[in-house]
């Protein structure tokens, strides 16, 4: 209800609105004023007042006509106002989903991915030692830059909830600390000191415990918010639909009454009012059904696909991180290997795995192709991983490192498989993101013009009613 011109007609109870609009003077006003329009809910008071007026003016037909006209015009204006109000609300929610809350959720997912990838890349660089490929360093830099840029943007645009701000603050504060730790690790490594490895472990722990936790919470928060916006946009405009039905019913009754009293079938004013109100009701119902359909499409197809794909991507990154950390720690224990298995299962298990689920959710070939590619790359990754793992348990540590980071033969490493999973998922996410944006824009677009139409048609209908009744009244002069 932000639009001032239409708001006033909607708020006062029907009786008063009728008097304000009625082109005729004094006669009806005294009886109308007797019950001084108490501040009750619009519809009830319209009827209550109508009843009072009916009692007061029951003896004269003009009085009754004025009451009927006021009530019907009031209902029509209420219909228009409610339509304006509810559709503005739904359209705002749809626009928020499209322009702000879904992109924020996508950005939060990307922040998480950039951080996790940076951390894994740092571990791979450590494993490679002095042979570190400049591309590895560049990838780390790119990840950090990307995370920092998205964080700055999230700080500027994020939903204004205190917890979102809290997470962004934590991330913004911790990121330079993390990069500082990684740089200290590098410096020590270059001096040949094992202290570098200890710094890297510390940095990894910090990343897992603080940064990635905050990024995950932020993603979940923004996703919940976007889902609630989406639900709000899809919420049916029940009040407006109810008011519209009621207004049409009132018009029908008024016309039947008119017919019974005068034997005349048509009153042009009332017919025009009926037509305008019916158009508005059909438009309202139709537009919202279309918007709802498009938004459901955005939700059930694109958004759920996105959620599965983002989840799969996260699991892939975690599995890759564990795979590298197994070698970094060079341990006798199987802590990281167990964690790798858990994440790999969450990613690829035939039952309940996120990749198979994303495959099921993919709507079209364009969406399915990259998911299939990711599935194939994951299978290859798992095979290569078991080879690397066998090498490691057999004590061929250097060969295991080679099989994981692929300095000599990059095309045969698990890293290469992971990169393909990564790239395929990026493609799939991009596709679903486009689908989502398109569907959300459709949904938003379906509601376009309806608010202006509601104001115009309701005013037309009210005017028609007033003119129609005035014409009848003139017959009593």
């Amino acid at each position: 209800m932000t639009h001032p011109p239409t708001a006033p007609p909607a708020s006062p109870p029907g009786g008063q609105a009728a008097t304000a609009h009625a082109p005729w003077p004094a006669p009806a006003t005294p009886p109308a004023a007797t019950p001084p329009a108490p501040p009750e809910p619009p519809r009830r008071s319209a009827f209550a007042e109508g009843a009072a007026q009916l009692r007061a003016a029951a003896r004269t037909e003009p009085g009754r006509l004025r009451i009927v006209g006021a009530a019907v015009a009031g209902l029509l204006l209420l219909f228009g106002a409610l339509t304006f109000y509810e559709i503005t609300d739904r359209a705002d929610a749809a626009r928020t989903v499209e322009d702000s809350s879904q992109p924020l959720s996508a950005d939060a997912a990307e922040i998480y991915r950039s951080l996790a990838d940076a951390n894994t890349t740092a571990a791979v660089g450590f494993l490679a030692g002095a042979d570190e490929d400049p591309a590895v360093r560049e990838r780390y830099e790119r990840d950090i830059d990307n995370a920092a840029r998205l964080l700055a943007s999230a700080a500027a645009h994020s939903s204004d909830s205190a917890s979102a701000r809290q997470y962004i603050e934590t991330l913004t504060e911790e990121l330079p600390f993390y990069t500082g730790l990684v740089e200290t690790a590098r410096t020590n490594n270059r001096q040949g000191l094992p202290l570098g490895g200890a710094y890297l472990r510390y940095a990894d722990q910090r990343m897992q415990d603080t940064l990635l936790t905050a990024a995950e919470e932020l993603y979940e928060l923004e996703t919940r918010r976007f889902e609630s916006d989406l639900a709000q946009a899809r919420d049916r405009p029940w009040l407006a639909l109810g008011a519209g039905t009621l207004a049409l019913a009132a018009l029908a009754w008024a016309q039947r009454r008119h017919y019974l009293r005068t034997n005349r079938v048509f009153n042009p004013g009332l017919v025009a009012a009926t037509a305008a109100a019916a158009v508005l009701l059909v438009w309202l119902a139709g537009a919202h059904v279309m918007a709802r359909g498009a938004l459901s499409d955005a939700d059930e197809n694109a958004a759920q696909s996105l959620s599965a794909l983002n989840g799969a991507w996260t699991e892939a990154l975690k599995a890759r991180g564990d795979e590298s950390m197994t070698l970094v720690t060079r341990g006798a224990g199987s802590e990281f290997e167990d964690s790798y298995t858990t994440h790999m299962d969450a990613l690829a298990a035939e039952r309940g795995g996120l990749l198979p689920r994303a495959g099921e959710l993919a709507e079209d070939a364009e969406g399915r192709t990259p998911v299939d590619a990711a599935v194939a790359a994951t299978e290859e990754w798992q095979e290569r991983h078991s080879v690397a793992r066998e090498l490691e348990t057999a004590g061929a540590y250097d060969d295991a490192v080679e099989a994981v980071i692929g300095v000599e033969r990059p095309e045969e490493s698990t890293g290469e498989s992971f990169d393909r999973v990564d790239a395929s998922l990026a493609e799939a996410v991009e596709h679903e993101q486009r689908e989502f944006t398109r569907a959300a824009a459709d949904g938003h677009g379906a509601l376009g013009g309806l608010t202006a139409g509601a104001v115009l048609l309701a005013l037309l209908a009210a005017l028609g009613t007033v003119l129609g009744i005035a014409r009848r009244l003139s017959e009593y002069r």
Partner: protein
Amino acid sequence: MRARRERTVPRTTKRSRAGSRGRSRDARALLLAAGGLALAGAVLAGSLPDGTDGHRKAGKHAVAEPADEHGVGTVAERETCDDGRDAAESYPAERVEGSAVEEIQDRGQLIVGIDQNSYLWGYRTPDTGEIVGFDIDLVEAIAEDLLDTPDPDIVFRAIPTSERINALQDGAVDMVVRAMSITCERWEHVAFSTAYFETGQQLLAPRNSPIDGFDASMAGQRVCSAEGSTAAELLARESNGADLVTAPNHLDCLVQVQLGEADALMTDAALGAGHVAQDPSMELIGEPLTEESYGVAFNAEATDLVAWVNAVLEDYREGGAQSRWTAAAEARLEGYLYGENEPPPSPPEPLYRN
């Protein structure tokens, strides 16, 4: 810890630092006889050449002196177990092919638990990723002998301090060569070889730290040690009011000190020397608090393997200045645990159970 342990920790000397310098100097003179102190002195002398403090110089001179296990009125004394044996006593050296030895020989591969974070002792060189150090040199000698080849197949498994005993018990590794102190309590779970190095627990803090000894100056300070280490046990028994922090590895403690998340750390002087070498703003504080020996640890059942490795250690120590032990010390420890141009310390004398 059920073992009887006499640790007349130097409350008198440390607490009255300002009041009784003379007395503490006397005490220090006595302490010089103790092997552990000798080592600590060497550490300081070697790693902090600019140190002008009295006891640092004294320590330097003491390096070559043979360790006296039964020093009088010392800070630290060797541990004697409940049955009256010295903790460092091991099974007599002999090469007998029992089941444990055969298993390794059949496999053709030795799986060793090591540390990749102990500078000078066992660490990963960041540029090549290779594991090197004094402990690793010993592992190579053992593997060459056991597998009877100059180029043995060795699998290094890095294990956290707290997992050393578990890894041996569940057979994940054949032996642990990881700067592991021989203690009576550990003898109840695993077996040890004869001693291959002597050291003692010591505090390590930044130079500007208010901590000046194992005493009340530690109160309110955060002191870090590795989980499951002798240092952690010692601090748990007597914290002197310090807040205790633990980390998976003693090197993680150095990270915490550097980042200001801990104020000091405790480890043994030999590993501490590695810390000072990596961060010269750190210094070893006071005297070693214990007198401990490093030994190779085994599954308690693998007595044949212990005896075999003891025989390898006999050869390793043999030959005075030409021994492999001395060569390893010169390659790994010179300039850190003792001065650049000084003779290396002597290997500890092996003690055997009768």
